[in-house]
């Protein structure tokens, strides 16, 4: 029986020729990641268990991106604990701090720290982003992170898979975000529970790396263990520009078994918005009435890349954010910030009346830099719209692409890009 792409990567990381769905394996980890919320818990568990050193100082990465620049004293203490630990264990070079930090899932691919064939775990649910690069990556908790820091291993249940057969090309103003929201609308927030989402078909080649990263990023919103794309010329071009390591390219066997195959015609996907309070509440503009908004956030690990900022700036350039709307733009990394500055995008944003922030996850999880009051509505390019996600439990988050977010900022209501 053939293996899926995910199963092949897992087999290679546990020394088996063949693995099958349901089997529990102990796999070797190429990279362990944690952020400033999950890592302090991992460090506590690591010490409590009497662990002393990390298994490989080049394979553990700390990214302080959630409550940074430190939002309060407690957040500052959490970051200090991480810095001290990284220094003590000899991997300060892998502890990314303010001034070099970026939103973790934008930062690691940008720095070439994940390449095709890798097995990556991170104590952050959106670790699944790296599937866009043909790697197996999945989110875990702090105790898993602690164990992997100590041993370099993680237990995993080999997942079955749903295959998404992509055809056609996206229309103007339609992006990866619309594709994943469309899929969420089809299969729901537990539609891929415990499973892999394997993207395939001739439609893949037309998707930019930015679109693929966005789609894989939100696989977790479908309950999936991972989302993964085949490796093609675009992937290799992206990776070779960032690393000297040699990618290992895995392909699904022709006779791989899938629980289900879903055909997606990319040319039929339209601009999509996920309504409160679940990412599966996907609606297209023929179903959206006039909904006035108070805030727009453009950024996050889902949509804070340079391509996203270009899309938003093209819409905002020469226009004004509607009076009464706060539009917050957050380049996901320092490199993106600099490139956006050199391209004049930051000027476009500021002239349109947007606030431009240093890289942070901040508002996405209601941490800081744009928390919502009772009854306020926000259009965000982020990934979750649960109750209270961006602030008050009676606030509302509408998930959308950078194009819809920018158009909405100008219109003062949820609006399509035109």
């Amino acid at each position, binding site marked *: 029986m053939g293996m899926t792409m995910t199963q092949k990567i897992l087999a290679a990381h546990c020394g088996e020729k063949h693995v099958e769905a349901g089997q*529990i394996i102990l796999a070797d980890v190429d990279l362990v990641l944690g952020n400033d*919320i*999950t890592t*302090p*818990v991992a460090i*506590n*568990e*690591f010490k*409590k*268990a*009497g*662990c*002393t*050193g990390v*298994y490989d100082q080049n394979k553990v990465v700390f990214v302080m991106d*959630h*409550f940074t620049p430190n*939002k*309060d004293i*407690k*957040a500052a203490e*959490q970051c200090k604990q991480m810095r001290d630990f990284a220094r003590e264990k000899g991997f300060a070079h892998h502890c990314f701090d303010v001034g070099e930090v970026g939103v973790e899932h934008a930062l690691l691919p940008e720095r070439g720290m994940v390449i095709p064939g890798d097995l990556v775990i*991170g*104590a*952050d*649910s959106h*670790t699944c982003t790296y599937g866009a690069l043909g790697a197996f990556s999945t*989110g*875990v*908790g*702090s*105790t*898993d992170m*602690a*164990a992997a*820091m*100590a*041993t370099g291993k993680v*237990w995993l249940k080999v997942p079955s898979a749903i295959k998404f057969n992509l055809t056609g090309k996206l229309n103007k103003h339609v992006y990866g975000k619309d594709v994943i929201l469309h899929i969420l609308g089809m299969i729901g*927030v*537990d539609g891929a*529970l*415990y499973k892999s989402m394997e993207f395939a078909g001739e439609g893949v080649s037309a998707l930019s790396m930015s679109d693929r990263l966005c789609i894989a990023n939100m696989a*977790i919103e479908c*309950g999936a*263990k991972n989302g993964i794309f085949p490796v093609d010329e675009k992937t290799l071009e992206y990776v070779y520009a960032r690393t000297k390591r040699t990618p290992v390219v895995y392909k699904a066997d022709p006779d791989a078994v899938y629980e289900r195959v879903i055909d997606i015609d990319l040319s039929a996907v339209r601009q999509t918005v996920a309504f409160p309070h*679940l990412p599966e509440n996907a609606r297209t503009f023929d179903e959206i009435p006039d909904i006035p908004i108070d805030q727009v956030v453009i950024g996050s690990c889902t949509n804070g890349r340079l391509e996203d900022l270009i899309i938003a700036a093209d819409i905002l350039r020469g226009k004004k954010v509607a009076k009464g709307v706060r539009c917050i733009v957050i380049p996901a990394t320092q490199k993106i910030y600099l490139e956006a500055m050199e391209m004049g995008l930051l000027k476009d944003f500021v002239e349109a009346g947007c606030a431009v922030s240093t890289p942070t996850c901040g508002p996405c*999880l*209601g*941490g800081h830099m744009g*928390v919502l009051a009772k009854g306020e509505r926000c259009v965000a390019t982020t990934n*979750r719209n*649960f*109750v*209270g*996600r961006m602030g008050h*439990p009676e606030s509302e988050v509408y998930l959308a692409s950078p194009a819809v977010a920018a158009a909405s900022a100008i219109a003062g209501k949820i609006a399509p890009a035109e």
Partner: protein
Amino acid sequence: MNIKGTVIKYGDNVDTDVIIPARYLNTSDEKELAAHCMEDLDRTFVTRVRPGDIMVAGTNFGCGSSREHAPLAIKTSGIACVVAKSFARIFYRNAINIGLPIIECDTDAIDEGDTLEIDFDKGELHNLTKNTTAKFAPFPPFLQDIIKAGGLLKSIGGGK
């Protein structure tokens, strides 16, 4: 192992943002976390939960963020076990890794305030209020070993 407790019931897709909102994640102190457990879904939870109560929910319990603070807050609040139709995968891992008992089984017939008795060895859930019994599948042996050892880090012998 046997436990007996009173049901506190919620619906489908209880996410980790309502279990413990991110605004409280600037600490890993479990008592502080427990003081805000379920706050955005049910403000009465922290005042009415009693040690040994059983949390019951629908599908996809614990979806969203990977924060281990969520099962930690539930465990520290006094909940003895979470019973749901299905769990989000990271929450499932985290619960096992920190030693919060969880059970996957049909929960439609269980109501708020029911008294449940759970026999983990036999894989039976008795609803003493409704006088019914449901079966649930035991964990795979590998996960049972982690649970018996008292959590993941103890099971791997503390690393190097």
